[in-house]
């Protein structure tokens, strides 16, 4: 992810597929883990931890969508709906059966995976923009169903209150406790995705993405792998929904509407399709951008405008800046932040002897 040797010295497939291509990579990963798991909760205030919480949730969802869109090449705008499936599954399990989080998280994921696989069936016949519309239909159908079936939604308000998760008898209440709780799942998602994409299944996904007829000819069952991609991606979405539910203490379908699906699609496109690091960068970018642009405007806007005008201007300017920055980054590097990072790395790899 961060390091590269100065040439190609690999002599076996095992070495080529290794998770850590160099020994130092392992230490970098350990250092990052130490920084975010041990040091960050100690030095950061509650507010910054709460932002990190939102980012962690987004990372899980973005990784899931990237498996489908980036690795397998199937477009989906129903990601938000799969999150709501996970959220309501977990909420009902908690409320009716008192299930602990280690039951509800996989259960929410599995339910979403099941529904995601069903929604993925049309992907056998249709591709590209047509598939996008089919998944859009799924988004609307799931929203409608939750809104109108009280057995799922728990009443006319379509929201179910869920107590915070507890671990060994203590309820995880503070932002830091929730941060570590969410971090566990985010790390699990990152490790699982990194391993998935270098496994047989992951390679099959990539083959389907690059040319599905060719993939079929070399013996890949495209139907099965497309459904797998939908199921795995929806599993991640379901888990994201459950994490959201625990983080906010409520399952509510209005938190998972189509704008959310589009936000996640923006994350994987901006971050970089078909890369784990790209999903993480995209999740960070889309979550942080509104916050950073606002603080920027609050800090420097006061120099030019009066406070009353500023109150009116910041929200609007923030939207403009948000859109503008997304276009800027995509123009600078259409393949996303991940590619941008790789370019920088490649430049410094031979620095100062670049030719």
């Amino acid at each position, binding site marked *: 992810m961060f390091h590269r040797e100065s040439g190609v010295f690999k002599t076996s497939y095992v070495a080529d597929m290794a998770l850590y291509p160099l020994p130092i990579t392992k230490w970098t990963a350990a250092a990052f883990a130490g920084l975010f798991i041990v*040091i960050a909760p*100690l*030095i950061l*205030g*509650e*507010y910054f931890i*709460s*932002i990190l919480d*939102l980012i962690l949730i987004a990372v899980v969802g973005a990784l899931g969508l990237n498996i489908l869109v980036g690795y397998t090449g199937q477009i989906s705008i129903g990601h938000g709906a799969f999150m709501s499936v996970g959220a309501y599954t977990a909420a009902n399990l908690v409320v009716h059966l008192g299930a602990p989080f280690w039951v509800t998280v996989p259960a929410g994921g599995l339910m979403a995976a099941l529904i995601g696989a069903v929604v993925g069936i049309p992907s056998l016949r249709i591709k590209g923009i047509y598939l996008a519309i089919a998944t859009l239909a799924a988004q609307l159908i799931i929203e409608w169903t939750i*809104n109108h079936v009280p057995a799922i939604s728990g009443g*006319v*308000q*379509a*929201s179910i*209150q869920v107590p*915070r998760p507890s671990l060994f008898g203590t309820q995880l*209440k503070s*932002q830091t406790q929730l941060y570590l709780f969410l971090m566990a799942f985010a790390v699990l998602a990152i490790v699982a995705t990194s391993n998935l994409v270098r496994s047989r299944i992951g390679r099959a996904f990539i083959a389907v993405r690059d040319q599905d007829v060719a993939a079929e000819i070399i013996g890949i069952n495209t139907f099965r792998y497309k459904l797998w991609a939908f199921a795995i991606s929806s599993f991640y979405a379901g888990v994201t929904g459950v994490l959201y539910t625990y983080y*906010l*203490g*409520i399952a*509510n*379908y*209005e*938190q998972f509407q189509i*704008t959310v699906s589009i936000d996640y699609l923006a994350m994987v496109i901006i971050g970089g399709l078909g890369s784990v690091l790209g999903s993480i960068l995209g999740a960070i970018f889309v*979550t942080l951008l*509104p*916050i950073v642009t*606002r603080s920027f405007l609050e800090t420097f806007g006061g120099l030019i405008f009066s406070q*009353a005008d500023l*109150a*009116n201007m*910041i*929200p*609007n300017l*923030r*939207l403009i800046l948000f859109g503008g920055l997304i276009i800027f980054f995509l123009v600078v590097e259409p393949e996303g932040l991940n590619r941008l990072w790789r370019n920088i790395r490649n430049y410094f790899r031979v620095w100062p002897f670049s030719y």
Partner: protein
Amino acid sequence: MKSLLMVAAAATAAALCFGGATAQEKEVMIGGQCDRTGPTQIVGVVICPAIQDYIDLVNSNGGVEGYKIKYNELDNEYKVPQAVEEYERQKQMGAVSMLIYGTPQAQALNQKLVEDKIPGTSPGFGISASADGTRFPYLFPVAATYWSQGAAAIQFIKDKLGGSLKGKKIAYVYYDNPAGHEPLPILEDLQKIEGFELRSFAVPPPGVEMGAQVLDIAQRYRPDFVIDHLFGRSPSVAIKEYKRAGYPLSKVMGLVWASAEADILAAGGWQVAEGYHTLQFAGAGDDYPIRQEIRAMYKAQSKEPPKGMDDTVIYNRGILNSALHVEAIRNALKANGGKQPTGTDVKNGFEAIHDFTLGGLVPPLKVTPEDHEGGGWVQIFQVKDGKFVKETEWFRGYPEVVAAAVKKAE
């Protein structure tokens, strides 16, 4: 060890900054979320300046009990993650009272409010069951909830139709989202009590296409009265469609988010909407002394008052919302002898709000630890000769039925 040192250093720095700020001027901070962008911006562009104006007015008159009110406004674009982030930010800035914006946001923040012991308000939206202060200790609807609105609408229709609803037909037209569904249980309870016929007509979001529903109402169902529970652009579309279908608008009433000047104007003006009844949780119109005071404040600064003031319905709601926060802080300061109030103090301050009417703009609320709604008072205004004319004084509809529903909602 090093990180521990850093924590200590950060804490000292924070304490120094905080101490420095309070030494100069005593401040109480209110955190407000208010959307000038996003799907609810029609309301936001009027209500957000109104909230700010009232706070400015209080501060220009010397603040509250020796404290200045510091108000911070953030826009969540009607998105829940943003709302959560902004809540945490304002908490970090020291807010002891929060204005929440939006029903899903109120639901998402409810648990945090309890954990952090900070009171939040959701006037006219939010969770109806949160009128029960014992179950929602830190959430204050402070104005009529959707349940009270529905009940008041039926009460008004009953009076209008001659005191009995037996055998009458009422149509309920609602935006097809949870907020739209919310009054339904109350309407169904009342249907059993009063013996009227009720049929509901769902309008799918975004609610700009409802020709079929209105035609169905006007031509086939022919109800004795229609209740509109719509949001955003859809109330104006509804008014237009009733007019086109020839259904008299004097038999239509809009609940609180279908009852602003902007809706009337977007429907084609006051003549089109002549006779339309609107339900209000804050007084409508210009005849309130507080509005003149705000105008005077702007005049003293030789500035134009904001254009939003012409949209009296929404503007007055903004005044109501921030006035109740200021009143709660005043109560808190009176009760604790002028010490820097905590969130719990302000919560107790809200629960002591009584006889605070702001010249008739605010209903005769009586907020108690059990009743965070303050009674569920509404007023009905009718569109007549180019303005809103008051039809009723503050009243409550079937308070015992609403109370029973709140109790049952556990």
